[in-house]
């Protein structure tokens, strides 16, 4: 009887913690949503603080934290966070490396080192694609990773070369029209209505 009571109390306490964490997650998402409407980075700091205080580490929270590390340019923290995640939690085996190498490149001031990390990210996607050439998701990862570090014109040149030999023509054409601008030119004015902008 005593054991049953302990198990019951344990289940009740776990359920209470999980409910608290869900409320925290909702609060963090609302801060992030507000950030996308006014570009106030303090809201992102608050969201990250809240998520850091949760006791669970499910995929929802992991995905949200990765976005926060990119938006806040907290690459070192992001790398440490992702290093602790097993590869099989990602959809594809190269994705952990793609995220980590991208953060390493973005954190690097030396252009040569930056290029080195970026090439490593591309290499791991290409290696996956050589065995899975029809994987649309991986193709999208490849060209958007390129776009993070190269000009739109150059990426479109790569894409046009790919179009000559690849059979996923419809998807690649759609990807071509989706690559509408240089990622380096994206700032708050790209997504916050002009009358609502505050600061970058």
């Amino acid at each position, binding site marked *: 009887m005593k054991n049953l009571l302990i198990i019951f109390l344990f289940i009740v306490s776990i359920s209470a913690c999980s409910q608290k964490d869900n409320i925290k997650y909702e609060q963090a998402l609302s801060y992030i949503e507000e950030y996308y409407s006014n570009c106030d980075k303090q809201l992102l700091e608050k969201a990250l603080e809240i998520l850091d205080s949760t006791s669970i580490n*499910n995929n929802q929270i992991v995905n949200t934290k990765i976005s926060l590390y990119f938006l806040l340019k907290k690459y070192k923290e992001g790398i440490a966070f992702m290093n602790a995640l097993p590869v099989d939690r990602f959809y594809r085996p190269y994705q952990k490396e793609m995220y980590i190498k991208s953060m390493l490149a973005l954190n690097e001031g030396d252009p040569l080192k930056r290029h080195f990390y970026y090439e490593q990210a591309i290499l791991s996607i290409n290696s996956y694609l050589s065995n899975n050439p029809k994987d649309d998701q991986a193709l*999208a990862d490849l060209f958007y990773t390129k776009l993070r570090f190269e000009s739109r014109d150059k990426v479109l040149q790569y894409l046009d070369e790919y179009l000559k030999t690849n059979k996923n023509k419809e998807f690649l054409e759609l990807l071509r029209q989706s690559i509408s601008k240089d990622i380096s030119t994206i700032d708050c004015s790209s997504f916050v209505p002009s009358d609502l902008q505050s600061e970058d």
Partner: protein
Amino acid sequence: MDWVTYKDNNIIWNDQATSAKSTPNGYTYIGNDNALQSHVGMAYNFPETSTEIIGFVAFDEKVGMQAIRVRETSNVQIGVNAQNIKGNISKSNESGKTFTGVSVTVTNKTKFTQVDGDLSSSRRVDVKYGDKTYSRAMQEPPSSPNGDIKEYGTNTTRASIVIPASDINSNKNFSSIKASGSWWVTKPEGRTPVVYHGIAPWPKTFTHSWTFKK
């Protein structure tokens, strides 16, 4: 029964006017709503505009964002706005029908591949007419009283902007109509945007514009 103008260029409804001949002295015959639109220089047909993109969203199943397809289509319609106003009831206008302005209605349709939750969008419409800009957020149209059957993967939003009759005159023109916005995945916990990519988590946006030659 059609629209007529009086000496002072006021547009009024006249129950007897059905042609220039049957229009009372001192008034100029305009005609039906379409004719009124032409009269105020607002008769336009707008081509449908669309955008199809690949964007990225997170699914809860695993870590890392996944590519989805989104297609956004915008249509514009311009129409005459009229109301029955008691104070304007007269012998020649028994219902008190009054020209209150011109409405610019923009309807957007979003089609998307499967996401975790529902994909809606945050959009607004800006209409520049004369020296004024009229803006409004787009919203889901109200559902019918009997309930609606909604196809998964499609959402519709609409905004109607009314340019009041007092702002309309033949010296003014439209300069642009613009529908713009971004896409959001809605779950019970909150909303997250469709972004460029997991390593570039800024919202993908669209702008559909119609411009007018001066």
